[in-house]
């Protein structure tokens, strides 16, 4: 095994082009290796000291959140909490304080677990993944990035340098809720994110819903816009629950059966739409929604 600490993005990209795998907090890679899931890669390049990848701010095409931004930062950053609230909801639920302090957004995205907490929020917020290699850079919509459990369409020489999101219009809000059996060190049994924009009459003007842990990848629910627009939030939330249950293709495992997941993801979708609409209407619901109004907890 070889291990290099990259001092710059160029250093990191060169190492990755030569075959090294990136490591930031190591909360998936090292834990997986110690648990016997997968051996550590032969060549590692530590990217956690590349400060430019730990920034949140204006970038080409919107707000760039760097790949090295930690969950601890996401859950408290004023811009993220104000504009991309569902992402803060999700980050606040990840692991424990130690996981959140070393675990990064980039690691969560590229580990590509369908149960990841930040994925559904990023999807409803319209985020794109910014990939860079020695040869150039490209941006990929998340539904094209995630190709299956633990797999992405990124090339071996590409590094995720961040995600780019656009600010939502006035009277918009978002929320992420998950079903959990305990309050810490938990993985979503199922989860749902919603982003909602309200019209002047208080009905839904635009909406997106995405689901965690009910498909091989995080799933953007189809037809949400058509089904929800023009409805009041309560009735829109029920419609979202129906679509979520229909489109989910969950598995049974030791955490839940497929039928339980299919039912509960509808409940989570409904609650996410209601919370997002309340935030869109100006209500201050503290991050994370799971804790502040007690929804999501079993």
């Amino acid at each position, binding site marked *: *095994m*070889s*291990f290099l*600490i990259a001092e710059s993005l160029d250093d990191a990209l060169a190492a990755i082009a030569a075959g090294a795998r990136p*490591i930031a907090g*190591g*909360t998936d890679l*090292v*834990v997986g*290796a*110690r*648990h016997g899931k997968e051996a*550590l890669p032969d060549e*590692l390049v*530590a990217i*956690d000291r590349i400060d430019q990848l730990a920034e949140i701010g204006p970038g080409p095409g919107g707000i760039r959140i760097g790949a090295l931004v930690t969950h*601890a930062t996401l859950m408290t950053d004023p811009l993220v909490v104000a504009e991309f609230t569902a992402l803060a909801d999700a980050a606040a639920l990840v*692991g*424990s*304080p*130690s*996981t959140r*302090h*070393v675990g990064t957004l980039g690691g969560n995205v590229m580990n590509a677990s369908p149960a990841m907490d930040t994925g559904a929020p990023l999807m409803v917020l319209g985020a794109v993944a910014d990939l860079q290699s020695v040869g150039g850079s490209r941006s990929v919509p998340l539904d094209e990035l995630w190709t299956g459990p633990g797999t992405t369409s990124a090339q071996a020489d590409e590094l995720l340098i961040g995600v780019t999101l656009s600010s939502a219009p006035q009277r918009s809000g978002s929320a992420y809720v998950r079903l959990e059996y305990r*309050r*810490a*060190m938990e993985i979503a049994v199922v989860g749902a994110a919603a982003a909602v924009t309200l019209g002047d009459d208080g009905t839904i003007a635009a909406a997106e819903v995405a689901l965690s842990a009910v498909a091989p990848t995080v799933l953007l629910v189809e037809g949400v816009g058509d089904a929800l627009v023009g409805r009041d939030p309560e009735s829109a939330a029920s419609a979202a629950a129906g679509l979520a249950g229909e489109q989910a293709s969950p598995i049974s495992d030791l955490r839940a059966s497929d039928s339980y997941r299919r039912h509960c993801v509808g409940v989570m979708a409904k609650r996410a739409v209601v919370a997002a609409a309340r935030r869109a209407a100006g209500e201050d619901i503290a991050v994370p929604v799971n804790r502040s109004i007690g929804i999501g907890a079993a």
Partner: protein
Amino acid sequence: MSESFDLEVNGVAYPVSVDQSRNLLSVIREEIGLTGTKEGCDDCECGACMVLLDGQPVNSCSYLAVQAQGRSITTVEGVMQGDEMHVLQRKLLEEGGVQCGFCTPGMIMSAHALLDRTANPTPEDVRIGLSGNLCRCTGYAKILAAVEHAAAELG
């Protein structure tokens, strides 16, 4: 491959020469000889191995030692102030928050990180701050009380 580097633990630079795949916990315990930090689950779940890395809590069982070079590590041995116990240690003893003691170093490090960044934590703040640490003896109530009392004493 083996690599030689300095690891700064509790303000002391320890030269170590270890395989690059070694976790921070094993190097602190077996190479440096500070055995206050414990191995519990070895799976990033129980918090017995908690240390501070540049002041933030990290599960040392699941962090590569080579990745900690150039950073400042604090273990439970580093929280004593001279011969005086840290207020967290004293309150844990006073409240009966220590039974078998195996989780205690990790609890202290998580609580330390919490109190460093939150001057007057609410009971909920304390619960969240310790949410990555398991205890199988105490039932937690006395640990939570100890941390709240330590926070009150620190003001």
